[in-house]
């Protein structure tokens, strides 16, 4: 018998059992104890956990338009480093991904990079303006096979436009991913509205501006019997509305970002715009509500909202700075720190929240597969017993706006496999990433 490509020996499966995983010809050849065959490369997994490759449903890759901040290639590298085998490229590029042409371009750039799957998200409305529907059908039928539509960065605010979009995507089983932000209530908003914003004299972004849109949209989704996904949930009140909607049987899913599971609005006291993000960092009690909701499944997935910005967009006054922070390279470590090391979730739940469920929501058939023989070999190996220190000068993203610079985080990602090829080997990006 010919040797397998890779053998990960004695690694913990998400459920906790130890096993040897053999990878060959792009698929998982076997999962079990005491693998007897030959292997070209043997990886000692004894301290490690293996998960299905991570799937991000919310990534800003900035290409086309802002290649100085990120490209599909640089974002793919950052993704592979962070254990991802699929990213979802948000539509707020320049030009906006509101036509088949743009989504096909992004899809092809992802294939050329070859480090992971890049699934473009289509804009709901032309130019993200919230007025007229974009070419939703053409994007769905394109090579990119778009199923997730979002005006992220902007809220689909007009209730009639939202209703029509929710109805229209039923034709091909799509989903609308809503950036829930009432624009009238958040004109000029800079940070969470509360005790800290009052002290700092920064214009508030009230929780109710998120909650009111979520409440409206779950009712709309119920009325037209369509599928709704809520992007980056940040408030305890939003969690309650999602919980209520799910109990009513409404077809809604929700995501939380790693940074909203860890960071709070008091960080704005430094006026350092690295902490400026939309939706904003909230309070300690919101963070606890989000963690609980992720653990109990009210929040379905973790999505990064990876938002690269060039240095000058953050090296300025707070109110002049761009919203957003990097997320791909730190996501799994932050989830380990906030959810696993706290005892709120086990690794099997991490696999669900960061791979299996996001793949299901996005309709990404070759992603988020359970780790059994015959599955496509998309997987990530993490050593949760080791720690590492984030250095913004060493990130693989084209930008360096990580809020974790200097933080020591748990969980070192050693290997990422994409379709049976190692994109990350012992923590180093493989040569297929052009490094």
């Amino acid at each position, binding site marked *: 018998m010919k040797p397998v490509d890779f053998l990960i020996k004695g690694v913990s499966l998400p459920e906790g059992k130890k096993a040897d995983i053999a990878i060959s010809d792009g698929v998982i050849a076997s999962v079990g104890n005491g693998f007897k065959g030959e292997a070209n490369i043997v990886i000692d997994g004894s301290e490690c956990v293996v998960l299905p490759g991570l799937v991000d449903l919310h990534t800003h890759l900035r290409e086309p338009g802002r290649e100085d901040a990120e490209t599909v290639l640089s974002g793919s590298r950052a993704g592979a480093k962070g254990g991802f085998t699929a990213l979802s490229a948000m539509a707020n590029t320049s030009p906006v991904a509101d036509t088949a042409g743009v989504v096909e371009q992004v899809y092809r750039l992802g294939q050329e990079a070859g480090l992971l799957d890049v699934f473009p998200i289509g804009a709901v409305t032309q130019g993200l303006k919230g007025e007229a529907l974009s070419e939703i059908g053409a994007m769905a039928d394109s090579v990119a096979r778009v199923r997730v539509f979002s005006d992220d960065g902007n809220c689909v605010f007009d209730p009639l436009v939202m209703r029509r979009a929710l109805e229209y995507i039923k034709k091909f089983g799509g989903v609308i991913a809503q950036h829930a932000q009432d624009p009238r209530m958040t004109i000029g908003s800079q940070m969470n509205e509360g005790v800290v914003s009052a002290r700092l004299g920064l214009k508030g972004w009230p929780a109710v501006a998120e909650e009111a849109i979520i409440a409206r949209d779950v009712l709309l989704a119920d009325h037209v019997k369509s599928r709704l996904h809520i992007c980056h949930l940040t408030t305890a009140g939003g969690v309650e509305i999602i919980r209520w909607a799910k109990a009513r049987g409404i077809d809604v899913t929700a995501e939380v970002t790693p940074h909203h599971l860890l960071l709070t609005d008091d960080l704005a006291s430094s006026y350092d715009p690295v902490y400026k993000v939309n939706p904003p960092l909230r309070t300690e009690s919101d963070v606890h509500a989000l963690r609980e909701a992720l653990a109990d499944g009210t929040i379905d997935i973790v999505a990064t909202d990876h938002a690269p910005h060039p240095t000058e967009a953050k090296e300025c006054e*707070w109110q002049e700075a761009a919203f957003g922070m990097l997320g791909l390279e730190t996501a799994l470590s932050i989830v380990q720190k906030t959810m696993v090391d706290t005892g709120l979730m086990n690794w099997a739940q991490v696999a669900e929240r960061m791979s299996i469920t996001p793949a299901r929501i996005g309709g990404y058939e070759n992603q988020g597969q359970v780790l059994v023989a015959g599955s496509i070999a998309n997987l990530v190996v993490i050593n949760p017993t080791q720690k590492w220190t984030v250095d913004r000068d060493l990130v693989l993203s084209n930008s360096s706006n990580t809020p974790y610079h200097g933080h020591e985080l748990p969980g070192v990602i050693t290997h990422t496999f994409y379709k049976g090829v190692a994109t990350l080997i012992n923590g180093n990006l493989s040569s297929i990433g052009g490094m």
Partner: protein
Amino acid sequence: MRHLLSIADLNKSEAISILDTASELARVSDGAVKKLPTLRGRTIVNLFAEDSTRTRISFEAAAKRLSADVINFSAKGSSLSKGESLKDTAMTLQAMGADAVVIRHPASGAAQRLADSHWMSGSVVNAGDGTHEHPSQALLDAFTIRKHLGMGGSDLTGLSVAIVGDILHSRVARSNVLLLSMLGAKVTLVAPPTLLPVGIDSWPGTVSYDFDSVIPHVDVVMMLRVQQERMSDLFFPNAREYSRYFGLNSDRMACMKKGAIVMHPGPMNRGLEISAEVADSARSVITEQVTNGVSVRMAILYVLLAGGALEVGSN
């Protein structure tokens, strides 16, 4: 103390020490020769990225009376109006050898950004940042209150102060709430609910929507300017209604305690938040605030650049 960015940077004894230093320096200002040689050879830059006449002139006078070299750098006609970043401006000032930068800026936190960055090494004095703080204004207000109503002690214990108007957008209010409370005064914030920030419950002091019920009980009524742009932004129905509920006119002034004073940080909207009769009345200490501003700003520069407070009674 290297910077003055917020009243929160000061403890009570530091604040009192600035006020005491200002008292000493005021004697210099009263003399025939108004100048001290203390900061000879030092360079102070007034970086004003927002229009301001009185604060800039006040800092300029203060620096000159301490014999510092003063460079004025204003938004209009400077590189700031050509889109130069705060970072590049700061690095330029550093390259020119500024010992201190007095900054007025429309963005909350701009002074702190300047101080925390490694763009420049000099002292930073916050001369008003967005809707955050205006610490030198609060210090001159406390100085003025102490001078008029101080009960002999060095602080403001036993006094009641009402701050009236647009608390939400006021950097003067934020600094004054912190400082006057720290000095022992009882502060009441009076405003329509729309002009009070969410989260105000955590501030020292109490809140009232009813000016008339507050006015007979306070020693100081501090009126805040109402910006024209608030009119169109749904904060209150119209200027007349605002004035009716929250303006200080002769009728309301007649209800004030004996000896109580009226303050305003300027510039005033006569006829809106304050009537001309009140502004020009015997209770008004508004022009005196301006005079005291120079002494207090001298004290701030003295403490930051000359390395400590002036000993009381020294020359």
